[in-house]
């Protein structure tokens, strides 16, 4: 994994913890290959909306670009890769 990816993933983990107010977690607790929802980070459907809003505001990715693309949200790594490839800011 190149350094840019590592740095971006770290930044995204910190943004997720901050935005979602994950009080009992730190960026280190989010594993790259861990599912984001339910059994993984334990996020729910309201958190899903918050993630797409965060993607829109922090990374300039329109919500319409992620609808019906559930594979993006499979793991933290798939989410990070998608944002990195599609971010406009």
């Amino acid at each position, binding site marked *: 994994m190149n350094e840019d990816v590592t740095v971006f993933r770290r930044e995204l983990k910190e943004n997720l913890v901050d935005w979602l107010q994950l009080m009992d977690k730190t960026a280190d607790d989010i594993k790259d290959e861990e599912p984001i929802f339910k059994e993984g980070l334990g996020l729910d459907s*309201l958190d899903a909306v918050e993630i797409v*809003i965060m993607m829109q505001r922090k990374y300039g990715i329109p*919500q319409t670009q992620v*609808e019906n693309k559930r594979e993006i949200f499979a793991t933290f790594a798939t989410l990070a890769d998608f944002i990195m490839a599609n971010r406009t800011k």
Partner: protein
Amino acid sequence: MSAAVPLNASRGNRFGIGFFRLLLHCGGFGLAVWFSRIVTWFYARFDRTAFAATAEYLKLRFPEDADSPRRLKKHFHRLLCELAKMLLVSYRAGIGTGLPIEEEDRHFLPETGGVVVVLAHCGCWQSSMDLMNRSSGRVINIMAQADRVAGMDKFLALKDKHGFNVISTEGFSGGLVESSAALERGEAVIIMGDRPVPGAAAVEVPYFGGKLAVPLSPWLLAARNGVPAVPAFTDLRENPLRVVIRYCRPITLPAAQERRLRNEELVPAAAEYVLHLEQFARNQPYRVFRFGDMPSEPVK
């Protein structure tokens, strides 16, 4: 809290539906409604499961009769009569011979841009889809459970005819990501605000001295997309017979934040909405069709 009972999945049969269709075609709406009173009397007399599913609501709505099974049964029968009438209205709408539909307080619905319309299982709510599609000038989406319930199957079958999209509540986000994207596109999203789908984030708020579990999703979607959340209720009015959809003042939503909105920040919006539900139930107590896990124990 008791388990939800999918009443419409197990009530009615092909013969009965066919009979009422024939009655509507040959004898008209009035005769079909009159005959439905006889049929519903049998349900009121013998359908203990249906009675149990409605009893909690009826006890809260009619506390003076809560200790009298006989009087509760009378309320139950009136509720079933109204339900049958609403089903007949909806069926007529489905076959293109629906009643005239009017709007009240339309100014609460913005002319352009995204909007969350919060409907409830009250009155003839299915009939409102037709009007919204014709009059709103924007794409209409309705969030619906992919179907375990026969009644919903029949309703969703109308979507092509009436031109609204269905966003399934299945999947990791319960359809919320798709709904949020629709709002971003400036479309309308209709959500049933009086009952959460299983597993969805919900909150219990005061309702007739008891508590009612309602979803948080309408308020989150509206707040996060900066669009209004407009409660709407459909009802049947007489002289002349017509369907009226009444829009309410948009619900006050929490301000935008650069962080997740906490569930407790959405509770006031849910509570404000349930006041509208209570008002409808006060005016039309027999046209409230949210069965099953209605209210629970009284608020301490």
